[in-house]
Every structure is written in structure tokens, then in C-alpha cells.
């Protein structure tokens, strides 16, 4: 008997190019339609064909948004998947694999699932994905009509024959799944009965992209690099409808310099990359600093150094973003933790960049960008767009000295003034100078905004009851979901969480929250980069660092284990 009443974790493994994503996309859509809460994340190899990629789909009664190490059902479309996932397979894991050609140990948990035979029966290998989705849906007991209806929608333009063949494939898989469910007595969580049209199924890249467009970002120039490319693709696909200029740059240096040029001319500019690409953009960060020109920089993090693990996840680029660029100037770094947060963060970043005329970073990672969840539509919000351009008058001074260090920003053509910006130290008109007195004033001007920027910093989110807790677990970026679930499962009043969606600068109001607490941090990097930064900013000591830098996200189980250990100390 296999009862998964609150939570089931299904993992799909196959070779690159085998159509794994088609299977999981289909399933996610149908599960969402049926009213289930789903969460999905994926890991894949840096190759186009072969190897082994896997996707985890969790179906839960509570709204969970975290990677689970446990596998309840493994759908091995390729026998390699079983070997690849060996460390996560337990005696409880049901393995759906094809016996013929299986090289590993065939245990009593293995269920012979003849993918090849089904494929042969449908007549075309392309229908194998439909068969696989059918098997899963048969096991879950979701009606076959829902599935075939979905296929009709998907293949509406492909003609009746394709629809009919897909439907046959769906039924083959579905019947097999039903048989297995009955034989193995598999019971799944019931749908959460939320069939309202107010739910969406969204991935991190889309959530980020929606936020960028909502922020009025109308210029993006970037060079493709995983996992930063998703934002570029998203904006390109919306460019026509939303009037966005998209340029694929020859390199990252060009990308950021173009974006700063665009911003100078009044565009709302954004660039997207990963750590390695951003390393090339550093001169541009410094340029934005001295030109006082807004630019939003999205870094989808992956493990370094250098090429590292191109398709995997890490939070190792905080120090890079924090210290990038020569000289002293202000910056802000945001680190969204959920899909809703991805949408809001990039809007906040764009508004902050505009208000303070600085570079603003959004730090995400492969895990968050590629994760897919069901989400309440209303939680995807558009924030008011603040744009502070002025119409210039004759004798305009781009760098006029003001009380707060911020000069009204004009753009060429709009007004009678000339807009002059210079990467050299410059006077109020933007003209080159070597006067030490002007230099002193300009340095001061560029740094004056640091205090209001600090005070405008987003406050962290408290998870649980901070008043009662003696231990505070700190997370930033993509670790919010796993921390929430781990704390919920521990259910200890002694533990609370604090999630930072902005990691620099730190709002001074945060200091008191950290007082008289034992501080524990969890970070997806090898040294605890945020722990160091937070200590530096607040003077507080972080007692424990839960770190992981294998290229994989934290699993709920390992955070649970680490926190339980600390709780018992």
C-alpha cells in the first residue's frame, strides 16, 4: 500500500532531447487544472543530447515551494535515471522503469513500464511523452477526458490525425497507470479544490520577465548565458507588443555599455547574465556609478569559479556584485525568494535605480528561475512605476550639486539643455576636470545617497513568531521556500526565520530584529558570503552557517536535519 495523503514527490528522469520537459509541462498543467498545488524544479546537464536530466514534481496539500530529497515515484524514461538518482532512492521509492535493457538491480519496488512497447504501439516515438504523462495521470486517477481535452487544445493546429494518435497514446499510458494504481494500492492527496480561474502556473523566468515589463523596462541588451538567458528570451517574446528594444550584444561588455547608453537617452534599461558574464560587466557598473545613470543588472547565479557548473545552482556571486567596479559609489542588491518576489523585486530595482541614479542588482539562481509553481494570480503585482526625468532648460547642469546629492536627470532632446556625461571626473556640467575641490564635491555627492538608500531598503520577511524564538534562521534569495517548509515541519517555537529579499544595503531597522537571538544562516555557497556581509553591516555574530555548494539546492530534509541539530544544542 502506498498512501501519499499530504505530499507526493514524483521525479522524472531522461536523456537530454528525450522530451522530458514536454511530459512534465503537460502534467503540471493538468495537475493545476485539476486543482492541485504543484511545485516543480529541475536539474540538467550542460549538453544538448544524452546524459541524464531530472525534474521533480511535488503535489502537496499545503502550498510547498521547496526541493525534496525524497522520491516517492521515479519515472525513469531512460535507465540512466535510476543510476543518476541512486542516492535519493530509498526502499519506499517506486521505480517505473523498463525491465528490458535495465542494467541496475531490479528490486521489488521496480515496476516494469514498457516505454518502448508503448511507443511502438503508437507507431511514432514522438508520442512516448504522451504515454508517459498518461501513466502518471492514470496513477493519480485524474479523468482521462481532462487529458485528452488538453491534448486537443495543444495540438489543435496540427490536425485530427495527430490529435487522434496522441489520444491513443494517452489511453495506452493511462490504462497502464490505472492498473498499477490498483495493484499497488496507490492513494494520492486529494486536489485542494481550488479550481478557480484565479490561479496561474508560472516559472521563475516568467515571473521575473513579467516584473521587468511591468516596471516599464523597455531596453535590454545581453549576451546569452545560463541561467540568465530566460529574461532575455522573455523580453524578446514580448518586445513587439510592449515596445521593448532587444539587442543581443556581441559580449557582456557591449551589453552593459549599451544599456547605460540607452539609460542616458531615457530608456529603462536592464541587462541579464550570470556570474561569468557579469565579471565582464564590472567596468560598466563603475561607469553607471560615475555617470549616475540607472541600470538594472540581473545575475542568475550558477556555481563558479569560471565556467563552474553551467546549468546548476549556487548563491556564490554576492561578493562579486557587492564589490564590482573600481571606486566608491552607491548600489543596491535585491534577492527575491519566491515567484511573487521575482516580479516585485525587478520592479523595485528599476524604481530604486531611477530614484537614486545607481546600478541595482537582482540576484537570482538557476533553481529559482527554473522552478514552476501554482500561484495565486492576485499575488503577481504591478507596482507603481516611478520615473523621474525632467525637461531641461538652457544652461542645464546634469551634475548640479544639491542637498541630497541627486541632480534632476535630463535626457538629450527633451528640453533646451545639453546633457553631458563623462566617465572622467567631471564638473556640474559633466565636463572633464582635475580640480581636487570639484573632485571632493563629486565624491561626496555620489555617496550622499547611501543613507536614504539604506533607509529605503526593503525589510526582511519574518517566518514564524520572532518574539518567542531564541534562534533566528537567516536566508536570502531562493532559500525562502525551503526555510519556510523546514521551520513549519520542525514546529518549534524556539526557531523563527528571517528572509532577506534585499541584501544590500541593510535597512537600519533590521538591527533590532537580530538583537538577543542566536543567529543561524543558510546559504547556497561555500563560505557564507551574506553572513560576512550581515556581520559587517550589523556588527552581529552569526553563530552557525549552514552551507551547500554542490551545485544543488538545499533539500527540505537537509535543512530540517541541520536545524534539528541546532535546536537540540
Amino acid at each position, binding site marked *: 500500500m502506498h498512501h501519499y495523503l499530504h505530499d507526493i514527490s514524483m521525479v522524472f528522469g531522461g536523456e537530454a532531447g528525450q522530451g522530458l520537459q514536454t511530459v512534465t509541462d503537460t502534467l503540471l498543467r493538468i495537475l493545476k487544472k485539476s486543482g492541485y498545488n504543484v511545485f516543480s524544479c529541475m536539474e540538467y546537464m550542460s549538453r544538448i543530447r544524452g546524459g541524464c536530466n531530472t525534474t521533480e514534481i511535488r503535489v502537496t496539500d499545503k502550498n510547498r515551494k521547496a526541493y525534496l530529497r525524497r522520491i516517492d515515484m521515479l519515472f525513469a524514461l531512460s535507465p540512466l535515471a535510476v543510476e543518476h538518482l541512486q542516492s535519493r532512492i530509498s526502499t519506499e521509492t517506486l521505480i517505473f522503469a523498463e525491465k528490458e535493457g535495465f542494467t541496475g538491480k531490479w528490486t521489488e519496488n521496480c515496476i516494469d513500464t514498457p516505454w518502448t512497447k508503448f511507443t511502438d504501439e503508437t507507431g511514432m516515438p514522438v508520442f512516448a511523452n504522451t504515454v508517459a504523462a498518461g501513466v502518471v495521470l492514470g496513477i493519480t486517477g485524474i479523468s482521462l477526458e481532462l487529458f485528452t481535452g488538453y491534448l486537443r487544445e495543444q495540438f489543435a493546429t496540427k490536425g485530427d490525425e495527430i490529435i487522434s494518435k496522441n489520444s491513443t497514446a494517452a489511453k495506452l499510458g493511462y490504462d497502464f497507470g490505472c492498473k498499477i494504481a490498483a495493484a499497488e494500492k496507490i492513494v494520492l492527496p486529494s486536489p485542494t479544490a481550488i479550481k478557480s480561474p484565479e490561479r496561474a502556473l508560472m516559472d521563475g523566468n516568467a515571473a521575473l520577465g513579467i516584473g521587468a*515589463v511591468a516596471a516599464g523596462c523597455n531596453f535590454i541588451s545581453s549576451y546569452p548565458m545560463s541561467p540568465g538567458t530566460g529574461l532575455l528570451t522573455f523580453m524578446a517574446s514580448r518586445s513587439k*507588443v510592449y515596445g521593448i528594444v532587444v539587442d543581443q550584444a556581441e559580449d557582456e561588455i557591449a551589453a552593459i555599455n549599451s544599456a547605460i547608453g540607452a539609460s542616458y*537617452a531615457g530608456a529603462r534599461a536592464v541587462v541579464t547574465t550570470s556570474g561569468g558574464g557579469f565579471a565582464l560587466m564590472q567596468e560598466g557598473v563603475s561607469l553607471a556609478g560615475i555617470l549616475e545613470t540607472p541600470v538594472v543588472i540581473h545575475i542568475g547565479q550558477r556555481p563558479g569559479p569560471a565556467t563552474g557548473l553551467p546549468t546548476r545552482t549556487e548563491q556564490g556571486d554576492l561578493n562579486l556584485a557587492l564589490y564590482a567596479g573600481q571606486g566608491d559609489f552607491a548600489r543596491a542588491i535585491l534577492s527575491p525568494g519566491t515567484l511573487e518576489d521575482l516580479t516585485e523585486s525587478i520592479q523595485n530595482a528599476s524604481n530604486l535605480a531611477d530614484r537614486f541614479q545607481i546600478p541595482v542588482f537582482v540576484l537570482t539562481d538557476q533553481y529559482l528561475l527554473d522552478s514552476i509553481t501554482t500561484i495565486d494570480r492576485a499575488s503577481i503585482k504591478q507596482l507603481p512605476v516611478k520615473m523621474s526625468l525632467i525637461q531641461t532648460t538652457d544652461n542645464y547642469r546634469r551634475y548640479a550639486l544639491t542637498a541630497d546629492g541627486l541632480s534632476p536627470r535630463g535626457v*538629450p532632446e527633451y528640453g533646451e539643455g545639453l546633457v553631458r556625461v*563623462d566617465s572622467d571626473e567631471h564638473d556640474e556640467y559633466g565636463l572633464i576636470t582635475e580640480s581636487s575641490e570639484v573632485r571632493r564635491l563629486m565624491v561626496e555627492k555620489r555617496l550622499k545617497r547611501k543613507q536614504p538608500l539604506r533607509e529605503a531598503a526593503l525589510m526582511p520577511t519574518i517566518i514564524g513568531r520572532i518574539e518567542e524564538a531564541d534562534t533566528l534562521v537567516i536566508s536570502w534569495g531562493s532559500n525562502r521556500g525551503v526555510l519556510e517548509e523546514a521551520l513549519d515541519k520542525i514546529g518549534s517555537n524556539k526557531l523563527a526565520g528571517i528572509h532577506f529579499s534585499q541584501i544590500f544595503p541593510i535597512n537600519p531597522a533590521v538591527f533590532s530584529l537580530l538583537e538577543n537571538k542566536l543567529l543561524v544562516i543558510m546559504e547556497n555557497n561555500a563560505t557564507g558570503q551574506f553572513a560576512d556581509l550581515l556581520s559587517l553591516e550589523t556588527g552581529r555574530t552569526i553563530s552557525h552557517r549552514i552551507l551547500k555548494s554542490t551545485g544543488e539546492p538545499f533539500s527540505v530534509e537537509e535543512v530540517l536535519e541541520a536545524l534539528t541539530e541546532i535546536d537540540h544544542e
Partner: protein
Amino acid sequence: MNKRPTAFDMPQETDVAWCPGCGNFMLQQSVKSALHELGVERKNLVMVSGIGQAAKAPQYMNVNMFNGLHGRSLPAALGIRLSNRNLVVVVESGDGDMYGEGGNHFLHAIRRNANITVIVHNNMVYGLTKGQASPTSQRGMKTPVQVNGVKLEPFNPMAVALALNAPFIARAYAGDIEETKKIIMQAISFRGFSLVDVFQPCVVFNKVNTYQWFKENISYLQDNHDTSDRTAAFRLATEMDTLTLGVLYRNDDRECYEDLIGVGSTPLYQRNPPDEKAFQSMIDAYQ
């Protein structure tokens, strides 16, 4: 020296960082006169440059100016141009900035063909860093770094640009203000990427390619040159015995990048963020 006042002269006396006798002074006069005679409106003109002595040129003109990073004038110019099609974008920088540090951008800017004019002060030497070889330095020139003389093949901007099918390629000589002005006028009027490589004597660091040397080694195009003949242009570009000046090649049929990617006429600073309905319609796709 010809010093007719233009709309682009600085309103006040300016301390110019160029050496006495520098070719930059004459070239600046050509640029300002060209803009003046074309009637370019000052508020719609943006001069973009990188770093180096040549890149200081916009500092000494009464214009909108983006003086960016070394080698990065072209990406910045692209961003500016794509954000506002009303702007006349003119890039001015040196041979080191354009063909060395910015070499990759030079190649890809030509491939894109945005409506930008690029004027390169080509003095065949690094001035601001005190006399090292530039990408266009001639073989054999001794410098504090190339102590045994330059060994590398000089970069040929005309030939490279032609190979990439640049639609407007011209060569000029800073010492001839009037002819250079005429060439620059054609370049700025041209719709698309226009390159003017201007020989400019460096009186301090280049003791090889002097005013006298240029006088002996340059000549203007013959009247019978067909500017639409790419092969003929390539022959002229690779001819080293005499350096031919003038518009070597132009192709008015190549579509410019702004049109190819459909950049609308409304400048980006005038565009509004999506309204509630447009925002919601983005989410509809994930329903």
C-alpha cells in the same frame, strides 16, 4: 587655420588638452563645420566617445555628450540610437579605442548597421599612454614597448569594414579641413553605419607619419571611381603605396538596424509602462 564660428563652438574659453600642432584641432574644425552646414539641431545631436586624446573631442564642443569607457563608444552609441531615433549620433574616438580596445564592437557595429557616424582619429600611435604602438602603427616603428620596432601587421580599417559589407566607408586627412568636412557631411547624411577613418598626425609621439609623410603618401580619389564598386574599393583599401582619400564605398540599399528590428519612432523615454490590462494579459498566458 580656417576658424569660422559654428553652432557647436564652446560658449566660453576652454582649456584644451591637445598638444600644440595636433591634427585634432583641424579635424574638430571639420566636424563642427560639417554639422553646422548640415544644419543639425544641437539638442538632437549626441557626440559619443571612448577614452584617449581623440575621445576628448566632444568635451570641446557645445553638444550633448556621452564620454564613456575606453573602447566602448560603439555599444553606448547603439544604446542611445536605439532609444531615440530622433537623435543624430556621432562617435569620435582614436585608433586605439576603436580598433584595439573596442575591436569586437567595431566588427559587430558594422554587422548591425545602426544609423551612426564613426569618425576615427587615426594617428597610428598611442598618445595618451605615451607613444606605444597602436593597431594601425606601421611595421618597424620603434616605441618604448616595441623596442625592436612594430612586428605586427597593421589593422586595415577600410578593408575590414569592406569585408563586413559596411555601407559607407571613407578615408580623410585631418590636414585638409575643407575636404574632410565634405566627407564627414556625406557620412552624417548617410542613413546607416558610416565610417570615416581620418589620418591625423601626432606631433609628439609619431615621428614616422608626420604632416610631411602624409603629404607624400596620400592622394584623393579619381573622379571616375565608382563608389558602388566594392571590389574597386577593396583594391584601394589594400593599396599601400599611396593612401587614397575620399568615399571609397557606399551602398544606399542596406537597411539600417533600427528598421530591421522595428524600433518605433516614439523615443523610449516617452513610452509608458504597461497599464493594468496589458499587465494582466501577460499573466493570462500562465493561466
